[in-house]
Structure formats: C-alpha cells, structure tokens
C-alpha cells in the first residue's frame, strides 16, 4: 500500500471512531445533556473529520462539514440553544456526514445536491442568532467560548463588544496543547505577523512549586490587536490549537479590559515567552515545556526562585517530585523529557475541558492478535500433553514437577483468557448504528419511535460483533415496521404515541444475551397461523401452542406484512435472522404478549474462537458436535428405530418421528457395530426441525478451539471446522446443517416446525 493510501486508511478508521463519538454525543444532547464537554466532543469530532477530509481534498465533505461545524460552534458558544429541533437536524447531518465518508471511502463523491436541504436547515438556525451571516459563505459570528475555570480564575469579563474596537485575544493553553506539540510562542508570533500586537502575560494561575505539575499549563496570554484585522485571519492562526486551549477572541469594550496592563513587547520577546515573566513572589515556575532547554531554564529559574522566596520549604524534593526522578535540581527536569512523563498530572490540569480521561489504546493488526490467539491455544494443548506425559512417566502427582505443571496450567489459562479479551469489544459499535436506523425506518413508516439501549459496554468477540449487525438491523426494522403500531393506533390503544424499542446486552452464564423488545401490538397469532396454513407450512387443522405459533415467523419464506414495504418484507425474513444467529453458534427465542409487545432474545457465544462441543466417537474417529444445536441425547430402544423406504430410518421420539442420520455413514467413516446400537443426539437443524444423529459413543463435553480447514485445504460439506484435542490430534467439528444437506435426498420431507417440539 502506498503511504498516502495508508494514511487515508487510518483517516477513515479514525472517521469511524469520530462518527461514533459524534453520534453518541448528539444522542446525549438529545437526552438533555448541555454540558460543555459533550458539546465540545461533538464539535471536535466534526472538526477533526473536516480537517482530515481537507487534507485529502474531499471538498464536498469539507464544505458540508464546515456548515455543520459552524452551527455546532454556535451551540458551543451558547449563542444557539441546542433544543430538540436543532439536535434532530444535527443527527441527520451526522448521518449525512457518515454517508459522505462512506462514499469517500469507496472513492466516490455524493455531490452537493443532497446537502443543500440540510445546509439550509443548519444555516437557518444561525440565522436566528446572527443577522449578518446572510450572503456570507462562511458565516462568522460572535465567538464567546465557555470559560473553563482553572482554580480561582477570575470571572469572565462582561464587556459589551464594540463594533470595530481593537481585538482582544485571550489565550489560555491547556496541557494538551503542549502535548500535541503546539507552542504558544509560535501562535503569538503568527498573530504578530497580522498586525501590531500587545501581549500581556497572566501568570497568576501558576501554583506553588509544591503543587506545580511539570506537564501542566498555567499561563494565560492576552493579546491586543488593531480592530482592522479580520477575525477569520485571527482564527486561522489558532486553527490547530483551538481544542487544546481556551480561546477568547472579541472586540474590546471602549477602554479595553480593565486589568490589562498595556505593555508592548517586541516580537522577539514573545518568542522567549517562557523565560520572560520573571518569578514573582510565590509563582516561581511559569507555564509549560516548550523545549527541553526551556524546561531546563524554567527548572533552574524555579529552583532559584524558590530558594529566593523561601516560600517553599524543600525545593529540591519538589523538583524531583515533579520530574519523578531523584536527581539534583535543574538536571532533574532534563532527566524527564516531557513525552515520557505520566499523563496523569496533565489531564488533571486540564480537567473541565477534556472529557473523562480517555483510555490509552493502540491499534493492532487483527492478524497479529489472531496469530497470538492461535499460539496460546497451542500452548494450552502442549501444556496438557506435557502434563499427561509427565504423569505417564510416573512422576508423583503431588511432586514438585506435577505442582509446577499445575501452576503452568493456571498461567496458560490466564494467558488464554487475556488474549481472548483482546479481541473482545463492547457491543457499542453495533448498537451505535441502530439509532440512525431507527430514525430512518421511523421516518419511512411515519411512526414515532424511541430507542433505548442498555448494556452497551458488554464485551464480546469482534467477529461476533461484526456479524451481529445484519441480524440486529433486520430485527429492529421488523420491530418498528411490524411490531409497533401507528401513532393513531397507539392512541386508541391507550399507549403513548411514541413507541419504544429496547435494545439490551448482558452477560449470562458465559454467553452474551441480546434482547430486542418493543411495546407494540405483539404477534397476531391468528394471522400468523392463517399465513402459515396458506403457505403450506402447517396443516389447517394443526393444534399449536402459542409458542409454536410465535416460532412460525422463523420459518423460511414467512412474511406477515400484507404489503411488502420498503423496510422489511423483502423476501428475507426472520428465517434468515435465525440462520445467521445459528451460524454464530447462537439461539434466538421469542416471547410475545398480544397488545403489549414482543421480546426477541439472542443468546450468543462470547467468542468464535472457541466452541462448547460434545465430543463423540464415530467408528475410530473422534468428532465434535456443537452443543448449541443439541436438544437432547438419548439411547433409543431398537424398536424406536423404524425404517422408512429402502434406506431411510426414522426415530420415534415421544410420539413423533424424526429423520435419522448415521454420522458414520454420512461421512463415509467405517462404522463399528450395527446401526441400531450407539447413542442418538437429537439436534436442531437449519429449518428448526429435529434430526436424530446416530453416533457410536459420547466421550464428554468440552470447550474446543476452532481451527479453519479452509486455510490450508478447502471446505468440506458436513464439516464446519477442525479442532485439536488434548492428545494433539485433529478432530473434525460437525456441521449439522451441512451434514443433513448432503443427505437431503434420503431424508424425509421437511418437518413442519410445529412438530419440532
């Protein structure tokens, strides 16, 4: 991949994260959050997308993001109130932004036509606030940042701006600014290039050396500039520093800010900003690391100053505390370059602006993680083999070797768990796509829907998450389209007009459970049954329990919508959902109460790398059957096995007959003994019907690591994958549906679902 493409790929990856932040932030705002952190996070997301897109020349995207950003800026400045209407438009804008990015990813351009309506709506909000934006492509407006209180910060000056008065720029860097490699000196120099500047330093925020954080930010500069300089140009200077500092740009009121000391400084002095302000009384160290030299200088100054003032009892200890290195003062700071110092203090210094401390993450190629998982799985097997051999060699079970092996086992299990945890991710990434879906489907159906999500931070394997998206999308569409009533119907039924879809995730007994519920009308059983009869799925006179009727919606080709709508009922239905959940080793169940709504429960394994399996013997081979498909195991009486036709056999199970498949025969493994002996596993097949699998013996139940057969060989029908047993041999994992399919001609006609239980 050429470097540019690589950077671009990273950009798009980041975009996904930013969009997720954007959406969750907007949703918080929708829920009533007005705190500056949320608004800032949302603004930052859009701004970063815009910045990156600009670098790649994605002009359409940038133009749209710019308008979006401008409106958000107004919210940030509290000149625009983020009421429900505003947030709704913003949510739609976020969707549009996401569309733009998706298109850009595919190398396409959506064009601007689709943006116009939203742009107008976004700008309309600004119109309410500012009148002078009319006709201006890039509206600028009074910028009034939130002042974030740092300690006993003086209250913001409330001075009426004068139309053309001189500019007053208050720059209060946060620690992040320095961390990101920005330098206020450079900013100030750039400002000086725009016109005559007068810079005043406010060092009143600098704490005692005792409390000083070497990575903190304590300084504030006030710059006065002639009013003739354009605001845009001033803002440009701060374009990349904007998020990491509290910036106020405003026209001074007549006499200027009362506390500003007019002290013109030459540009050169500005460059030396860190050194210029000489220690005053109890404020010995100014500001932040600009360079190693500067730190050094500051440290020396600081040390000197503290000694002079004598305010701080133990300066030497303090300096080394700051730098976390017990070195002599002066060189102590040198010993600790800014980048390597713990970020803790810095984030403390900037509390109030940066949201909750973000967790440190690294991006790792998934292949590397998978390789690691493979190796650890191997380690576990090797360890088991070693332990077995040691015992066989006659080592005492409680001897030091055996005990050592026990410890090793514990360690390897722990390593395995930790490695598996690397692949685990919160379901949030899937859940976050749902609000947009709900908005769109609600819009199309004219229903009013509220989505409630719970347990977003429940973690599950990345692959499970990826493959959850489609089934969930489909189920939520169905829930809105079929489950919820129209607002009128709901009113008549005495329910609130707004329907609720609840999406929840939780861990339960080593699996992840996802619940999708609606408070709609529930399943119309009479209609479901009528349709099933019409489609020939059940006999007209079949007697079914409510549960059986509910389960009919999972039957292939079943669609209850009388009109095929845009949203659901495209021919694929709940059967596809069920199959994709089963393909993940999961199960899906439904509970429905007429008039109250329905609840779909998905139960999925936490990872696809391991599987709970029943280890069985067929002939001289060992096979693994996934536990999830097994309904029950039984040892049938010879009289329960009945022939049907020349080859077919069926098994009588409590009055109904289930087609029987001899696994050994199906896989053409030489089978021992006669077909009537052995054990039968009653398994659920693809269609929800039951199949009886005959095997020679059951060895037990265990968790196995799934290994791909396709990687070095190819797919084998009837075999899902392979695994490695404790003795180091490869065992095949049975694919029940595939096995049944290979035997299809010999299997009795499809069992109606009703007979399944």
């Amino acid at each position: 991949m050429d470097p540019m493409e690589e950077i671009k790929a990273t950009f798009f990856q980041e975009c996904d994260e930013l969009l997720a932040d954007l959406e969750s932030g907007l949703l918080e705002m929708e829920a009533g959050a007005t705190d500056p952190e949320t608004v800032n996070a949302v603004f930052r997301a859009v701004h970063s997308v815009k910045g990156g897109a600009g670098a790649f020349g994605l002009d359409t995207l940038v133009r749209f993001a710019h308008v979006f950003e401008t409106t958000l800026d107004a919210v940030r400045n509290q000149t625009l109130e983020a009421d429900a209407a505003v947030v709704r438009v913003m949510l739609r804008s976020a969707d549009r932004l996401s569309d733009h990015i998706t298109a850009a990813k595919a190398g396409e351009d959506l064009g601007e036509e689709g943006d116009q309506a939203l742009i107008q709506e976004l700008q309309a909000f600004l119109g309410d606030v500012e009148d002078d934006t009319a006709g201006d492509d890039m509206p600028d407006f009074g910028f009034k940042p939130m002042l974030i209180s740092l300690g006993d910060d003086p209250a913001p000056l409330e001075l009426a701006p004068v139309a053309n008065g001189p500019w007053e720029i208050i720059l209060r860097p946060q620690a992040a600014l320095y961390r990101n490699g920005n330098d206020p000196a450079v900013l100030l120099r750039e400002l000086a290039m725009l016109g005559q500047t007068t810079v005043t330093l406010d060092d009143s925020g600098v704490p005692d050396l005792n409390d000083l954080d070497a990575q903190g930010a304590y300084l504030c500069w006030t710059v006065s500039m002639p009013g003739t300089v354009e605001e845009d140009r001033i803002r440009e200077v701060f374009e990349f520093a904007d998020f990491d500092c509290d910036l106020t740009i405003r026209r001074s009121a007549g006499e200027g800010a009362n506390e500003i000391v007019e002290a013109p400084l030459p540009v050169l002095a500005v460059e030396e900003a860190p050194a210029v302000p000489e220690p005053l009384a109890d404020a010995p160290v100014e500001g932040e690391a600009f360079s190693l030299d500067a730190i050094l200088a500051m440290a020396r100054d600081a040390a000197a100053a503290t000694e002079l003032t004598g305010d701080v009892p133990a300066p030497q200890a303090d300096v080394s505390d700051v730098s976390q290195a017990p070195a002599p003062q002066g060189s102590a700071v040198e010993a600790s370059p800014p980048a390597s110092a713990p970020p803790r203090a810095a984030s403390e210094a900037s509390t109030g602006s940066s949201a909750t401390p973000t967790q440190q993450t690294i991006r790792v190629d998934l292949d590397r993680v998978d390789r690691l998982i493979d190796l650890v799985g191997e380690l576990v097997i090797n360890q088991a083999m070693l332990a077995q051999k040691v015992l066989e060699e006659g080592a005492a079970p409680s001897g030091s070797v055996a005990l050592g092996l026990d410890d090793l086992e514990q360690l390897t299990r722990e390593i395995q768990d930790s490695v598996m945890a690397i692949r685990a991710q919160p379901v949030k990434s899937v859940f976050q796509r749902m609000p947009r879906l709900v908005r769109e489907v609600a819009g199309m159906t004219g229903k009013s829907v509220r989505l409630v999500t719970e347990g977003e931070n429940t973690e599950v394997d990345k692959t499970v998450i990826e493959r959850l998206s489609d089934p969930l999308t489909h189920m939520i569409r169905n829930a809105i389209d079929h489950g919820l009533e129209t607002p009128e119907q709901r009113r008549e039924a005495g329910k609130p007009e707004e329907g609720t879809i609840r999406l929840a995730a939780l861990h339960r007994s080593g699996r992840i459970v996802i619940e999708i519920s609606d408070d709609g009308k529930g399943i119309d059983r009479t209609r479901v049954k009528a349709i099933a009869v019409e489609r020939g799925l059940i006999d007209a006179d079949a007697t079914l329990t409510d549960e059986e009727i509910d389960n009919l919606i999972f039957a292939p080709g079943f669609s209850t919508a009388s009109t095929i709508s845009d949203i659901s009922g495209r021919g694929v239905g709940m059967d596809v959902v069920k199959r994709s959940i089963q393909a993940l080793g999961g199960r899906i169940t439904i509970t429905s109460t007429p008039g109250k709504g329905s609840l779909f429960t998905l139960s999925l394994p936490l990872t696809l790398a391991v599987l709970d399996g029943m280890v069985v013997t067929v002939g001289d081979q060992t096979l693994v059957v996934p536990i999830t498909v097994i309904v029950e195991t039984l040892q049938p009486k010879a009289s329960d096995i009945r022939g049907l036709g020349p080859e077919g056999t069926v098994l009588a199970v409590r009055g109904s007959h289930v087609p029987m498949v001899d696994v050994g025969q199906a896989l053409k493994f030489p089978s021992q003994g006669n077909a009537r002996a052995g054990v039968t596993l009653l398994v659920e097949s693809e269609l929800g019907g039951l199949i009886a699998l005959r095997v020679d013996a059951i060895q037990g139940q265990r968790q196995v690591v799934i290994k791909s057969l396709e990687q070095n060989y190819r797919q084998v029908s009837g075999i899902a994958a392979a695994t490695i047993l404790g003795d180091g041999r490869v065992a095949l994992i049975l694919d029940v549906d595939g096995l049944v399919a290979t035997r299809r001609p010999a299997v009795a006609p499809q069992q109606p679902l009703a007979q399944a239980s």
Partner: protein
Amino acid sequence: MTQDNDKTHELIAFRIGAQQFCVDIRAVREIRGWAMATPLPQAPTWVKGVINLRGTVLPIIDLGARLGFGATEPSQRHVIIVARIGDKTVGLLVEAVSDILTVGSESIQPAPDVSCEAVRCFVKGVIAQEADMISLVSLDGILPEAELREAA
C-alpha cells in the same frame, strides 16, 4: 517455480518407492516424522487427512499416490515434508528424505516425454546423478483447486 538460467538451485531429494524425486528447497518449511492423520470425508484418495502442526490444521498429501504410484501405507519411517504451495501450507508424505542437492540450471534436463499423465503434470525436469536420475517435481499443480472441487 522460477527457473532462471545460470542460477543454481537448491533441492531436497526424497524417495518414493525405488525412484528419487526432488523439490525446490525454497518451498519447504520443515521436515517432520509421520503422525496419525485424521481422515477427511469426501477427500480424494491421495489426501491422507489432516494433522496438527503446532496449531495449524495441515492436510497431508500422499505424494506417491498423487504421482500415480498407488496409496502409501505410512509407517514410523515415513516423513512429512511441510511445503508452502501458493498461500496454503501442506504436508507431503514421502518415504524418506535422502539428500540436499545444489545444481546449476544447465544440469536440469527437460523431462522426457512419457505417457504417464501424472508424470507429465508434475515432473518438470530430470537431473542426472552418477548412477541415478532424480525427477524435479513442481508443486504448483499438486493442490489444484479445480481438482479439489471435482473431488468434492
């Protein structure tokens, strides 16, 4: 396998029955002893099954059967040459590895035209040795996707 002229080739020689064969050493990852393979359903006769190679499921190809010699009855003396073919890693079951040769391109003669189909497909050249002849086997065709699909 690229066969640039005036270049030397390092080859691993092995025995199948009474004949000597060799493969390009660059394709070979390792050589290991025979381990019981787990048979695969619906596999061609020349696929012995799969074994566990440090966590990778490795299909074992009976090279003798593949070259038309008939199925090998593997014993402890047999070895598996682990080779990389395209993006797949496979194990080749042979009787014994005999030698590592370094030969120049000029000493590889084109394979004489014989009627045997398997020989025509897989033997890309022969190398004359004192009293012997070694056939150079090209691994490219050993695992043809089409043939695997056919066999399915």
